[in-house]
């Protein structure tokens, strides 16, 4: 699983981050902030390697 980029997304009623929009293996995925989700686990590993999840727009 190759992660190119990741950015938080908020719901549009407040400033809570609710998901991550990430480009993974060339595809745009919406990844829940759920420790049981395999893509979120991969994002956390990617962050541990020194990468950063961009803040929401």
């Amino acid at each position, binding site marked *: 699983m190759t992660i190119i980029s990741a950015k938080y*997304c908020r*719901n*549009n009623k407040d400033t809570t981050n*609710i*998901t991550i*929009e990430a480009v993974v*293996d060339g*595809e*745009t*995925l*919406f*990844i*829940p902030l*759920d420790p*049981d*989700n*395999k*893509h*979120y686990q991969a994002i956390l590993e990617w962050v541990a390697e020194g990468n950063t999840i961009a803040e929401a727009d």
Partner: protein
Amino acid sequence: MTKAAELAKMGEVITNSQIGGRRNIIINGSASVNQRGDSTGVTADGYYGPDRWAYKTEGEETVSISQASDGPDGFANSYKVEVTTADSTIAADDYARVETRLEGQNLQHLKYGASGAESITLSFYVKSSVTGTYALGFYSADGSRNIGSTYTISSANTWEYKTLTFAGDTSGTINDDNGEALRIWFLLSAGSNFTSSDNTSWAGYSDSRVAYGHTTNVIGTSSATWQITGVQLEVGEQATPFEHRSFGEELALCQRYYQKITGSDSIYVATTTEGISRINGMWTTTMRSTPTSTIDSGWNVANLNNMYQAYNSSGTSTFPNITADSEL
């Protein structure tokens, strides 16, 4: 087999409750559900083609994976791997395999970790252009243990029926949760790192116990094929006839792990006065866990395991295509 032996076997099957209730633990064992569609140019791990079956590789090959419209009598479909670019040299750490993963809370009746751990029998139809000895095995994720065996394809391009029985794992464990508990893998190729240690009884996992006895190399030949269907895993020491389920029933089982909503410009999306299009919906089936989604460009989507919310700040009126993935 004598009549007496037949009756004895039937008695054993009845005693083990194999003919009562649902027998087959495998989902989409007949490859009838193919939500993702066929894939060409496959070079990396992932779910391609028929649902619930993943392709895993450390080789340099390229393959196509499809729902083939052929099978043995009584089966309309099979899961098919076709090599389009061969990996002629299998390095020690190369492998290619097809696997399916099973959820722990569905396997509590196997009683792993208890003295009464149940034997299981795996049966399937297989066809390949490459004859020889193939390894298959089970990986028990919660205890990181595995067991394996081999089967032989005797005639090229001919459907053959195989059954193998495995002892229950009295030292294993299967957590009662929605995580992966048991993985079943069918090796297509295996380098020497995976074949050197006997794996015919349950023990702690090691790479060398993955493919003991495997001698064939499907991915080493361009245009080589390997197909499987009628996969059944059941409690007991006897293989019973494949449990055919209706398409709708099998689809619903698959949708717990992956589902796809097909968009349409005939289904209009409401737009707010601020110009934001918004959809709130329920997944067809409650998913195993909160899924990862794809959605058409311009949309955002957030999920729970039973519902989703999508919005598009550009105010489109076309219902988008959405996928949800909570595969193990």
